[in-house]
């Protein structure tokens, strides 16, 4: 009966979203009067999950699963849910988990709601609040099926430590040859840089920066904050920055804790991508820039003066606060 989560493990540790999922699932399980089971793939030390409320970990160890494979991983999650008799299965909102979730849902004949931003509004009937219309609205969705699959939006719940330890159990899954019909040939990952998807803080630049040669100051500010860098659409269209950094309705969504926008006007399509960020700071010369309407803190000023000065002051602040 327990609530099942799929906890993503990479490079020797659980992703932060996995711990957020555990924290969230713990609360859902409490409401339902049950406990939390996590299923993991090729994870080594699973003890950390216990600190965030997981009671039991099903450890799948299988060399065939070394590389992510949506169909095979979906089988893992489905079989774990069946073994546990889970009525609620929760995944995170990484690109990989969002790839899995609908496959898991069909496998379990379950309803599926993605982009869930809070604890269930009610568990009987089972209703969740989710982002819709590019975060311009919320939708309360009722899952009417016996088994429910939901995907939690990033940074929407946070981490909540719990007391307790998770027991670990080896779990053997049965996989079909057809699970491996899609083959990974190669991967290209920006190394050493924080990716927009994982970032707590994002520093973003727009056309107001005048040219690619001025991005050094954006990167320096990002470095001090341990932030990812991003940009508006015209900036990537002009090839000042790579397309992977383009944020907005047609680019990437950002759900960071802090979003700093420098020289970005705040067009509706850009805002659509950053609505889910918690705190927004805007630096723009034009006091009429629409971005000021959605920002929490604003500086009407020239980026070329403000950004280097802010970087300098943040360095001092970090030095004194660490």
């Amino acid at each position, binding site marked *: 009966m327990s609530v099942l989560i799929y906890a993503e493990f990479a490079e020797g540790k659980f992703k932060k979203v996995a711990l957020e999922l555990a924290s969230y699932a713990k609360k859902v399980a409490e409401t339902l009067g049950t406990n939390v089971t996590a299923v993991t793939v090729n994870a080594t030390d699973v003890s950390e999950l216990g600190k965030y409320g997981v009671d039991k970990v099903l450890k799948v160890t299988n060399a065939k699963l070394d590389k992510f494979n949506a169909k095979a991983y979906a089988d893992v999650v489905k079989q774990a849910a069946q073994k546990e008799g889970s009525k609620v299965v929760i995944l995170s909102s990484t*690109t990989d988990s969002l790839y899995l979730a609908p496959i898991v849902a069909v496998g379990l004949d379950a309803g*599926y709601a993605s982009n869930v931003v809070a604890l269930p509004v009610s568990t009987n009937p089972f209703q969740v609040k989710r982002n819709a*219309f590019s975060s311009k609205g919320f939708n309360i969705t009722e899952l009417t099926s016996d088994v429910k699959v939901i995907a939690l939006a990033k940074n929407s719940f946070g981490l909540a430590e719990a007391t307790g330890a998770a027991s670990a159990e080896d779990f053997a899954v049965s996989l079909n040859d057809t699970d491996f019909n899609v083959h990974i040939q190669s991967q290209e990952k920006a190394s050493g840089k924080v990716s927009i998807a994982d970032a707590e803080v994002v520093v973003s630049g727009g056309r107001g920066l005048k040219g690619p040669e001025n991005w050094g100051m954006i990167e320096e500010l990002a470095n001090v904050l341990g932030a990812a860098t991003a940009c508006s659409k015209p900036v990537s269209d002009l090839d000042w920055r790579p397309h992977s950094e383009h944020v907005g*309705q047609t680019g990437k969504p950002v759900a960071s804790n802090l979003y700093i926008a420098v020289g970005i006007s705040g067009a509706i399509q850009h805002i659509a991508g950053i609505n889910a960020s918690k705190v927004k700071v805007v630096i723009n010369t034009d006091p009429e820039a629409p971005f000021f309407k959605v920002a929490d803190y604003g500086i009407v000023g020239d980026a070329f003066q403000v950004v280097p000065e802010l970087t300098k*002051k943040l360095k001092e602040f970090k030095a004194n606060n660490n």
Partner: protein
Amino acid sequence: MKILVCISHVPDTTAKINFTNGDTEFDTNGVQFVINPNDEFGLTRAIWFKEKQGAHVTVVNVGGADTEATIRKALAIGADEAIRVNTVPTDGFAVAKQLAEVVKAGKYDVVICGKESLDYNGGMVPGMLASMLSYNFVNSCVGVEIEGSNATLVREIDGGKETLTTNLPLVIGGQKGIVEEKDLRIPNMRGIMTARTKALNVLDPVAADAKTKAVKFEKPAPKSAVKLISPDNLDELISLLHNEAKVI
């Protein structure tokens, strides 16, 4: 090669979002509807296959008669024919089920969907459809090449990209990158005229129960006004970010 492109009919990106009927329905008043942007990228790629390698391109939409203008636009962009499954979409599961019937009947080799629609942002249909059909599936696709029955795809991963190979039949969840924005086509007069003569077949839906329902909508709470800080007082910004917002 037979390609099916699934298109959803969504409010234009700049549309104001309002709800009506006690916040239980999306208010379509004054809203312009368009082809879901992720689907338009996929449609453009399908037309490319048609022109460069030879393919027959069908577009399909699950929706009421009000979506026909959007379907005609897809025909004007270059699809050969269109199908509308005549039912108002309820949830991703029910839509995938209707689409699965269309795919089985038409024996399509490649099905291109957008990875999510910009209204409900569900990201459900492509994966569900692939599972129901037991077709191979690649999501968040930013590149696709097909030679015979072999496909090479590029998908986005967190912090990078990955190249994959698989065989047809195949379902793709596509997005920008599958073609670039500059390659999107605006229908010309000739396209619009010929679109009128192309077949738009209306099919009756099969029985398909939804597993979720939208019970209510809410708008985000109105935001308090921005706090303006003088550029000469950046210490104040740092202090606010640290003490008030607690984000640094």
